């Protein structure tokens, strides 16, 4: 802010604050006369007499004072304003329509911000009143300066506070994304948003190369090539942890002990060059991103370990049960194909996958002679078989991290029309995972040969699923199943399942 603009702001603030009106009210009350107060800016000393005359006329008109503004009066005010700058003290002015006139400098901290001219007819401003006006003006000036300072601080701090809040929000967003396929595009999008760049590419290190893993752009899809960390100059610099800042490009390495990836930004939407602020903010994001990427990688590893453990557990359980009561490994693919077509969220898909592997855990609690019985089961034996979802749920419940899959396992033999077991739940009260498993389980049972039941052909089994839509099965799940059939997914999985069973 230059000197003149600050002075102008001070005068505007004082005149907008109502202080001059308040001062006039006090002076009018104390003197019993109509005082005329004219506020002049610091630049008034450089103005012509005509401009001062015009200001004075405006004030007189507003105050409804009918008086002739003489040349001598204007010249006197103009002269005293100039003298005030040098003396920094109150100066007396002579004016034809006022008995007394004074110019008060608005002086603070070695600076003059403006002047107040007080004109009074048939009245006196004694020493006490002059001091009162002086003190009043000083207070008003200090208040105006504080207000301006506050506005300045506010206008400086507000964008910083918003930026800080943005950094915090981005941190929360990326640290709560544990799926790498979601994390990298999200990170790219957020970097693009914050820097208002045209393109953001997140590279992930694979060996001695940086592979583009997420590309986000406001315009067309840009080309992104992999970068060799040994052969390219940029690659070598990034590998050493250097941030590369050029007017149109910004590269920020994602470093832990070694280079993990790179955030690359191209061109600002405004056309301005990238600057140190962009560099700082993307560096903060990079620090947050590396933690988030490491977390996601750790989560991925953990999920893999859990999946492998569940597969092993499932295989161990299968050893006890005869093959007629176990699902082939491709059964998981069948369930996932339907879930994909249904549009199940990644997290829920994961739970459904775990549930699929542990679906029949409870069969370990069923006597072996029942499981291995070649002929028809007695009602009592059938009841025992019907209890397996309860028993499976009971076993799985003990593993805390698998709690979300318990309802899927427990209700996978429920029917959409409410005629299923164990609870006879109806419609959407049956968990989605269980509704999907119900279709997959029935389809697998139909196409796979059982000693007690002949298998149906693929087409027949599909028709049967269609027929049971709205009765045994959720129509929406059946639709998803039929979409998967149309795409040829189910046929391919069925073939794999039959091959697996034949090879058991």
């Amino acid at each position, binding site marked *: 802010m230059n000197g003149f603009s600050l002075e102008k702001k001070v005068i505007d603030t004082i005149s907008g604050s109502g202080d001059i009106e308040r001062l006039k009210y006090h002076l009018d009350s104390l003197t019993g006369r109509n005082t005329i107060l004219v506020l002049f800016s610091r630049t008034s000393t450089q103005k012509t007499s005509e401009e001062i005359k015009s200001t004075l006329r405006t004030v007189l008109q507003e105050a409804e004072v009918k008086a002739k503004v003489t040349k001598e009066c204007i010249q006197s005010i103009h002269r005293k304003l100039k003298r005030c700058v040098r003396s920094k003290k109150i100066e007396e002015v002579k004016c034809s329509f006022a008995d007394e006139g004074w110019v008060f400098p608005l002086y603070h901290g070695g600076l003059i911000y403006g002047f107040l001219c007080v004109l009074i007819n048939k009245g006196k401003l004694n020493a006490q009143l002059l001091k009162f006006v002086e003190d009043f003006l000083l207070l008003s000036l200090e208040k105006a300066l504080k207000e301006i300072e506050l506005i300045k601080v506010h206008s400086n701090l507000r964008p910083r506070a*918003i*930026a800080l*809040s*943005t950094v915090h*929000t981005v941190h*929360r967003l990326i640290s709560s994304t544990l799926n790498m396929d979601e994390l990298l595009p999200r990170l790219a999008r957020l970097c693009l948003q*914050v*820097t208002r760049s045209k393109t953001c590419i997140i590279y992930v290190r694979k060996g001695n190369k940086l592979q583009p893993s997420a590309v986000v752009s406001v315009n067309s899809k840009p080309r992104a090539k992999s970068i060799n960390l040994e052969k390219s100059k940029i690659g070598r610099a990034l590998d050493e942890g250097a941030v590369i800042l050029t007017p149109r490009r910004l590269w920020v390495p994602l470093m832990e002990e070694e280079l993990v990836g790179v955030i690359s930004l191209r061109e600002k*939407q405004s056309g301005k060059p990238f600057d140190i602020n962009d560099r700082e903010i993307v560096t903060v994001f990079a620090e947050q991103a590396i933690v988030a990427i490491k977390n996601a990688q750790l989560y991925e590893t953990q999920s893999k370990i859990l999946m492998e453990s569940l597969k092993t557990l499932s295989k161990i359980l299968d050893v006890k049960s005869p093959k007629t009561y176990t699902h082939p490994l491709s059964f998981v693919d069948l369930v996932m194909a339907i879930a994909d077509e249904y549009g199940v969220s990644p997290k829920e898909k994961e739970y459904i996958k775990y549930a699929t592997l542990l679906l029949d855990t409870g069969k370990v609690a069923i006597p072996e002679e029942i499981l291995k019985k070649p002929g028809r089961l007695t009602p009592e034996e059938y009841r025992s078989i019907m209890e397996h979802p309860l028993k499976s749920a009971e076993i799985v419940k003990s593993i805390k991290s698998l709690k979300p899959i318990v309802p899927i396992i427990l209700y996978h033999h429920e029917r959409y029309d409410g005629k299923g077991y164990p609870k006879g739940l109806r419609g959407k009260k049956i968990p989605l995972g269980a509704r999907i498993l119900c279709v997959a389980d029935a389809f697998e049972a139909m196409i796979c040969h059982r000693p007690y039941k002949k298998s149906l052909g693929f087409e027949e089994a599909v028709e049967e699923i269609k027929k049971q839509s709205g009765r045994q099965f959720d129509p929406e799940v059946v639709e998803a199943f039929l979409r998967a059939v149309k795409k040829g997914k189910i046929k391919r999985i069925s073939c794999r399942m039959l091959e697996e069973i034949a090879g058991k």
Partner: protein
Amino acid sequence: MIKRNIFVKIKNDPVLLKIVKFFHENPSCIDSAENISKWIGEELKTVRKKLDYLVKKKVINKDKTYLAEAYSYTQDKELM
């Protein structure tokens, strides 16, 4: 093609106008409904409702994870 009535609705709704003005002045901002309500000095419940309307109209974007949800300004130049 942006429908003209979105602009009319924004112009006639003080909270919508405040939100859009806030994002226009701070296009890099990515923030929660709670914070946006503080920045513009409006009640959270109303702000959340208006934000979701603007998301629906694609004037702003919404990011949601299990831990956080955040709103940011569109990158669409025509809208901006």
